[in-house]
């Protein structure tokens, strides 16, 4: 599973993307957030308040209950501020 980080999420995690292999019981976005938060102090800081995060699965916005699978591209970022 490819995980991407943008904006201050990327800065806190310390990398723009990484390949991860969460265990089978990590089945949705919310579970992935909890699992990723354990990986490093940077991850813990980035995922400290999930309400401030938004996610995309395979380049579509996704809610916390969105299912995830091994070959998915999952991204985490703050609310968007373009335009």
């Amino acid at each position, binding site marked *: 599973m490819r995980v*991407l980080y*943008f904006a201050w999420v990327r800065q806190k995690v310390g990398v723009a993307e990484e390949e991860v292999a969460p265990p089978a019981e990590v089945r949705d976005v919310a579970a992935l957030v909890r699992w990723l938060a354990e990986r490093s102090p940077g991850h813990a800081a980035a995922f400290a308040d999930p309400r401030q995060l938004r996610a*995309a699965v395979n380049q579509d916005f996704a809610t916390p209950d969105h299912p995830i699978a091994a070959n998915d591209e999952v991204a985490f*970022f*703050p609310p*968007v*501020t373009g*335009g």
Partner: protein
Amino acid sequence: MAKVLVQEAPFDAGAETAALSAGRADVGGIASFLGICRGDDGLAAMVLEHYPGMTERAIARIAAEAEQRWPLTGCTVIHRVGRILPGEPIVLVLTASAHRAAALESCAFLIDWLKTRAPFWKREEFAAGTHRWVEARAEDDAAAARWAAPDA
């Protein structure tokens, strides 16, 4: 089918506008919105980050929604990324239609949805050397919600 570009380079708003009516006589009006980087509070530059791939996909989807809601003869969205200085353009939205209401409304719709549904993030850099990520604004959510759809 909208023209969607995400690029670092500046764009030529005049040429993009002209392209929407060139060689045809069914366009009655072209509405546009040009977003420009303001220099508030000693801003030195705005750095725009995006999610390559998803960005183009998200904008194309927003433009397709506009084309479904209004009878457009053309639609162009260009959004810059990278480092942008105060006074420089950031985003251009153009909508063309036989009638002005369709052009004006769809242009407002596109910029409102772009603000809340396209994966861009702005970081402000200040003359003092500090920087901060721009926070999403409740007004932008409210503006986007005016156009609420079943999928909103």
